[in-house]
């Protein structure tokens, strides 16, 4: 499920502006300051949305990801950039399924990060059943 993506042989993700003015692109890249909801009318055309994290402290991409999943996007949602293993679990909860970190991640660390949390307090985009629901059914 978690892959380190290599760009050879893959269709490049175009910018949001380019995507909105092109009719045939199937992959788009969303910058932190761009509105994920601009993609909502076009989700069925998209196989890949790459959300940029130029700096790991800039958390706008987490909201972008959840918004896209909440709108029904089922394609590949990729976190790209300054992605560290310590953000992977939250990113997955927000709906990311692939990761393209600038600095390669240690796969044992990634496995540990994803296995860390037994449950979750709140509902998010990963379909996990929140603790309050486990408590009451």
């Amino acid at each position, binding site marked *: 499920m978690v892959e380190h993506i290599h760009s050879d042989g893959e269709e490049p993700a175009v910018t949001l502006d380019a995507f909105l003015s092109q009719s045939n692109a199937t992959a788009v890249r969303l910058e*932190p300051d761009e509105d994920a909801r601009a993609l909502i009318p076009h989700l069925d055309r998209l196989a890949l949305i790459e959300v940029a994290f130029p700096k*790991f*402290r*800039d*958390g*706008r991409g*987490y*909201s972008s990801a*959840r918004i896209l999943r*909440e709108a029904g996007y089922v394609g590949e949602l990729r976190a790209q950039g300054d992605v*560290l293993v*310590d*953000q992977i*679990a*939250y*990113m997955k*909860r*927000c709906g990311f399924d692939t990761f393209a970190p600038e600095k390669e991640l*240690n796969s044992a*660390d990634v496995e*540990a990060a994803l296995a*860390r*949390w*037994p*449950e*979750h*307090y*709140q*509902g*998010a985009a990963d379909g996990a059943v*929140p*603790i*309050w*629901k*486990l*408590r*009451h059914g």
Partner: protein
Amino acid sequence: MYKYDEYDHAMVDARVAEFSDQVRRRLAGEITEDQFKPLRLMNGLYLQLHAYMLRVAVPYGTLDSRQMRMLAHIARKYDRDYGHFTTRQNIQYNWIKLEDAPAILQDLASVEMHAIQTSGNCIRNISSDQWAGAAADEITDPRPWAELLRQWSSFHPEFSYLPRKFKIAVIAANEDRAAMRLHDIGIQIVEKDGQHGAAFYVGGGMGRTPMIAPLIKDFVPLDDMLSYAEACLRVYNRYGRRDNIYKARIKILIHELGADEYRRQVEEEFKHVKSLGIDPPKAEFDRIAAQFAPPPLDAAAPDAIDRSDPDFAVWVDQNVAKHKVPGHAIVNISLKPVGGIPGDASSAQIDLMADLAEKYSQDELRVTHAQNIVLPHVRKADLYAVWQALDAAGLATPNLDLISDIIACPGLDYCSLANARSIPVAQKIATRFSDLGRQKELGELKLKISGCINACGHHHAGHIGILGVDRKGTENYQLSLGGSGAEDVSLGTITGPGFDEDGVVDAIERVTDKYLETRTEGERFVDTFRRVGMAPFKEAIYG
């Protein structure tokens, strides 16, 4: 109070394991300090002036004797035998070693405590009214809502890399004992047409640009509280400024958008978020609320207090507040002995307060944002025994809300962000005004000191506020008057040029003398200031 179930334990244990691994990786050089810093901050660990500082969460300021004893244990075993209670109802230790942090968090977890999200650009400790469950004026106990918000905000995957820190307070009375209007989100549980709902104030804060939170929604149905909060946070996460650390709080976003536009965006987001089904069912609220059921207090307990000991009587008059149940009282323990360090308590004092809580206060204590401690449920018949024990431990200073009940940040003695020392100023002021008769004549006078513009001492909300600045390499102190963090919320006004350490104490004395000259019957200092304005005080200070 809330007790963890298996899920809560599992979550805290997972966090301890996660952070222990992060510490290991940092010590082994697998991650840099730049990468580690946000991670350790999200576990309450700062690198401070003298060592690492650990800020332990006291959720909505409530804890029991077992937890209080653990705080004393940590002070003794890992620190220098004392802790500092903070303006967000937490406790801080100043001499922590990074290599000990995992063991400390394990010790805390064993008594259902943690340091989760007490720092970092995430949702911080949910604060509340220190008299919750005991005060007669609340319409309900706000703490079950605070607990619900605590769980919702813990490890929130979308809101852990916000533009800046986020502070939420919840109250349920018109009297605001938690400075609710000066939080990023302040919630007041209110009643309308026989129903309870949540009034949301969003965009308050102190710091560099203090702002009072505007009312964003006057009545959010309680079933919608978490969805509404989620919508507020999502708009902030998406649109809060990230270009300038000093303009990154939500108060700036709301100020720049205007409250109406922010509200519009939140309402739109809320409609969408509500459809996601993230609000827990009433059964979950009821499960939590049941743990805050009123304690079994005997309303027939004797109401009389034997005031024959004059020192005890003085303390009763100043530090003991009315409880909603007859025969009982709320005890306020001052951590502001004259000449002492505001908010500090030794491990022995912490243990003593734990013992008193267990024996006399239904095993419950509260931490206040004024850096004091509360025993919320004490029988009037036991007050004398409680006072004697406090007095023997140096914890019976009868100065609640008087001028020597100073809120002071740790300042340059402890904090790497500070520009000036704040504690010595607090000590000098308290010493100058040490005469209790003089203090009582001045009456309610909330004096607050911050050692830098970050305003952790809440100086903007002080009836008298002091801001320490660095003026060409020397410590300098600006004086402000007329602020308040209560329901009569206001931001203080600077008097004029600043002073050195002794000068600011003299200036305050001239201010209080002027107040005594000018006041009418029953006017507090802040009331007189609001009536006559700055001019007479400025004249008195500067001539």
